[in-house]
């Protein structure tokens, strides 16, 4: 385990309102350095809103937040330099090649040409993509795109990587290979903040938070959550919590 006690994300009383609608209602939580933190919730529970704020893309209405050691109000650019982000839409450019995408993202994160070249070499070797170096993104399989998007998101060695439903739609073997990559990144000390609708993936996380209607309804290790809710799986924990609001 590489998780230690240092907080890499600290969120206190985060509130985000859109008009009269409260999307995030006093969220308070911490994420430890090197942790795989699962951020779950029903559609519309407020996950994306919170992630956008943590990534420095949107301001909170109120609350104090520190991400990767920086203040989310006054040091947004520093936050952005120290995080990586991968969306469910994998924001790779379809009409650029594999190498061009790596070079583009490396450049955006301010890596020098020399570093980009050495890192992309290592990356393609590790993924077994050397033959695909000059292929257009649109011509490579979905599973490859996904692995590449993740590798690109951590190319600049960020302290934290945010993964927003990274495994949607891929086959079950690729989905597991992807989790091997997540474990590896966490092993190397990168904190992983991940959302998913696959509840078996929630079990792979060190700790999991479950949002219901803008609040954090539960936060603990998967084992403790299952015990607390007398549920055999995280799927049952989730359904108990998210259904409770309807009843």
């Amino acid at each position, binding site marked *: 385990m590489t998780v230690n006690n240092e907080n890499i994300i600290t969120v206190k009383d985060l509130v985000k309102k859109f008009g009269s609608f409260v999307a995030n209602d006093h969220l308070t939580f911490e994420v430890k350095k090197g942790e795989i933190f699962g951020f779950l919730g*029903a559609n519309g529970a407020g996950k994306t809103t919170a992630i956008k704020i943590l990534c420095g893309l949107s301001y909170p209405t109120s609350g104090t937040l520190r991400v990767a050691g920086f203040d989310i109000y006054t040091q947004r650019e520093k936050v952005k330099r120290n995080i990586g982000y991968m969306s469910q839409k994998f924001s790779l450019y379809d009409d650029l090649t594999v190498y061009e995408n790596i070079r583009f993202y490396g450049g955006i994160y301010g890596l020098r040409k020399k570093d980009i070249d050495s890192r992309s070499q290592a990356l393609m070797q590790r993924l077994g993509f050397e033959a695909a170096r000059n292929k257009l993104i649109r011509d490579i399989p979905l599973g490859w795109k996904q692995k590449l998007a993740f590798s690109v998101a951590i190319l600049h060695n960020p302290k934290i990587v945010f993964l927003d439903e990274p495994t949607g739609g891929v086959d079950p073997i690729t989905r597991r290979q992807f989790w091997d990559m997540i474990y590896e990144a966490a092993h190397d000390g990168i904190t992983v903040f991940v959302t998913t609708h696959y509840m078996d993936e929630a079990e792979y996380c060190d700790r999991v938070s479950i949002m219901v209607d803008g609040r954090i309804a539960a936060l603990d290790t998967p084992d403790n959550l299952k015990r607390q809710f007398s549920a055999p799986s995280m799927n049952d924990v989730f359904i108990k919590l998210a259904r409770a609001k309807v009843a």
Partner: protein
Amino acid sequence: MPVKSVHVQQVTKRFGETLALDDISFDVARGELFGFIGPDGAGKTTLFRILTTLLLADTGTCSVEGHDVVKDYKKIRKISGYMPGKFSLYQDLTVEENLNFFATIFGTTLEENYDLIKDIYRQIEPFKTRKAGKLSGGMKQKLALSCAMIHKPDILFLDEPTTGVDAVSRLEFWEMLKRLKEAGITILVSTPYMDEASLCDRVALIQNGRIMTISTPIEIIHHYPLSLLSVKAGDIYKLLGELRSYPGVHSVFAFGQTAHVAFHDKNIDTGDLSDFLVKMQHKSVEISPVEATIEDCFMELMTAP
């Protein structure tokens, strides 16, 4: 022999160099809830577009309720409901306007078929003046299903209705499908979620344009060719790596906090395996035989030569 609702014979479809459907054949009986289970790019959407007469196959024949997809496409359009994978209702019309629009196109009214959709529609009726683009994922899905049902179709084609939808909405959606099935409607549904297979009467496991197997979920599991153990022991990442090095192991896959380990040998000594893991510094090792899930079957079929 039950009455066929869908008949597909040797259908092939290419897009440039990509073989999207590779010699696909299957039948769906009337009233059946039939699932296509497979990842993105398997060919599910292409198949649905051919069956709903929106795309022509390169070769092969298909019929829906006895109507040929090429010659009788107009008849098929009248009796089919289609929910595309991509949300394709009018985002700037309200919930009610969308429903009225689809009802009018099919020459009917919301009132006329209210009974059929009321179970589903009631859940979104409180938001009927809200624009479709402003609905949450689960509500969009209910509206799309209501619109696909508004003309009382004989057969429904639902292309990945639960993708990107949370676990609770997925559960509710399948409960709705069960009720529609009880009303006698034939349903073809596609999904990348392997656990939804067990909710179908029969499923086709599909990958790279090919159907790997078609059967009832129980039969598919019954035909799983390996013996399978569930192993739990603290650090799952370390565990997976070490299990892969154990003699005689065919495959190791993570399933939540446990690992599923498959052997060709039916008589694996779990005591030996346990000793091995203890020697590898694992604490509280739990090993038990386990029945394969559809996901185990899918992965085995994917990697089979």
